[in-house]
């Protein structure tokens, strides 16, 4: 379904050149949930955005990317934009502060010239567990969890096949996170979606995904299944260290931490 080969992303010019992503390759099958894990600066979000085609103005992107047998060119097609959607990390930042929920949800439908827009909006709100009374509210009038649901609803409006999730629950309270993760799982089952989930939280990735890639400093350190992750059968020291750190505070284990790159 999704195939990335040799992706490179470079920001800046001359002396300020920054290689955010180096030679990254990954494959995601249809209906799969694939995780991209890493710490800050690992390039995981950049990979997602490169795939989404929203980096063209600010970076040089090279490499071969194919989505559902469509080779991705510099300018994404309308059909790509309908089939691939994204949910962003910051629930407040990803909704336009001056647009009502209704405007936010109907805009993608309008852009793709879909019919029965009002129906679709109400239906999308229902699917994410919000009732129609939310339609004409502004983002600052609703909670973080509700905003993230609106983000998910926006991603569903065009009837996509693939949803790219950029740390969708990192900014949410733990109890709200559980609700949103459950929502995402249900939607995936009901609509047969394919996910790529970016997160720094190994537990979230282990819960949501079947396989994952660990990234560090712009490169893929290791690709494995979640099962292998759980069994601690990783061979790479970086992954092992990440895993240990995810389990919580352990004074003796911390002494063994290395500095990578």
């Amino acid at each position, binding site marked *: 379904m999704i195939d990335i080969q040799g992706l490179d992303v470079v920001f800046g010019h001359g002396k300020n050149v920054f290689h955010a992503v180096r030679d990254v390759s990954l494959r995601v099958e249809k209906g799969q949930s694939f995780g991209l894990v890493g710490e800050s600066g690992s390039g995981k979000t950049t990979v997602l*955005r490169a795939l*989404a085609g*929203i980096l063209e*103005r*600010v970076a040089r992107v090279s490499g071969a990317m194919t989505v559902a047998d469509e080779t991705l060119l510099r300018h*994404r097609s*309308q059909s790509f*934009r*309908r089939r691939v*959607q*994204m949910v*962003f*990390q*910051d629930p407040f*930042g*990803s*909704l*336009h*502060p*001056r647009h*009502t929920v*209704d*405007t936010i949800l109907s*805009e*993608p439908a309008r*852009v*793709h010239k879909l019919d029965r827009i009002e129906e679709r909006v109400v239906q999308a709100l229902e699917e994410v567990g919000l009732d129609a*009374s939310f339609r*004409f*509210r*502004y983002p*600052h009038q609703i909670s973080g969890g509700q905003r993230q649901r609106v*983000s998910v609803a*926006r991603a569903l409006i065009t009837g996509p096949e693939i949803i790219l999730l950029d740390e969708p629950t990192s900014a949410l309270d733990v109890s709200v996170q559980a609700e949103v993760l459950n929502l995402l799982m249900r939607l995936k089952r009901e609509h047969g979606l394919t996910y790529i989930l970016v997160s720094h939280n190994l537990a979230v990735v282990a819960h949501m995904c079947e396989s994952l890639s660990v990234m560090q400093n712009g490169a893929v350190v290791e690709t494995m299944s979640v099962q292998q992750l759980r069994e601690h059968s990783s061979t790479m020291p970086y992954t092992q260290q990440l895993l240990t750190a995810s389990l919580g505070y352990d004074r003796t284990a911390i002494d063994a931490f290395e500095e990578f790159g």
Partner: protein
Amino acid sequence: MTTEATLRGWLLAEIPQSKLQARCQRVFIGWLDFKRNPIAMIGLLIIVGLVAIATLAPWITTSNGLELHLADRLKPPGSEHWFGTDELGRDILDRIIWGSRITLYIVALVSIIVVPIGLLIGTVAGYMGGWVDTVLMRLTDIFLAFPRLILAMALVAVLGRGLENAVLAIALTTWSPFARIARAEALTIRNSEFILAAQMQGISTVGILVRHVTPLCMSSVTVRLTLDMAGIILTAAGLGFLGLGAQPPTPEWGAMISLGRQYLIDQWWVPTIPGIAILVVSLGFNLLGDGLRDVLDPKSGN
């Protein structure tokens, strides 16, 4: 009484039923905020007064302010002529009232020209970046560098005297700061996630600029416009004073000062009254602008 109650209920409803209602609610809340500032309300009152006087001019004046009555010239303020008469016997109060229309005309015309140009250039420059930004900003810098009155004078010298040309000249010297403001806002938001989301949806650059970027510039631009208004009126008055703007017998306030200045010592009311009018209106716009800024400033939340 009941319609007012229903309106209030509609504006304070928990759940807005339409985009119009949601928008009106936001404006209403902003208005409640604005009302709490007495100084801003004074500014608003002055401007509303100005509009009222200009609209009602045909009904509240006793003459058209243009006919000569040489027998009545230079009469001091009294019961028959509340502000006295000028050197050609025309009632000054009437001329002030008719002149308010001209002031409003100048204000409106300049705004209509300056805001769209400033927004267009600023948002495009800020959002696109790169050489587009450089070219547009250097263009803006050129206009910014000229002292307003001098450039206005030069333009009027080329285009000829008259109120419209004066307005055009003022507009050309006023748009630059708005472009800068719009560009600053566009720069701030262009990497926001909601802009990325819009790109993700396949919305065209024009669509993003018009529906996403511009609405967020409106607050700053509106505040700047009201604060600049005083300067615009004064420049128009200055041009009028120099004889480059409205031509006699048009009762433009600046021209009135110019023609009346020789009478300042003995018949003080002839140039002073129009001067006070300019002062009051400029002050009104300033106070209004300050109040708007307090309400619209994003830091105070919305």
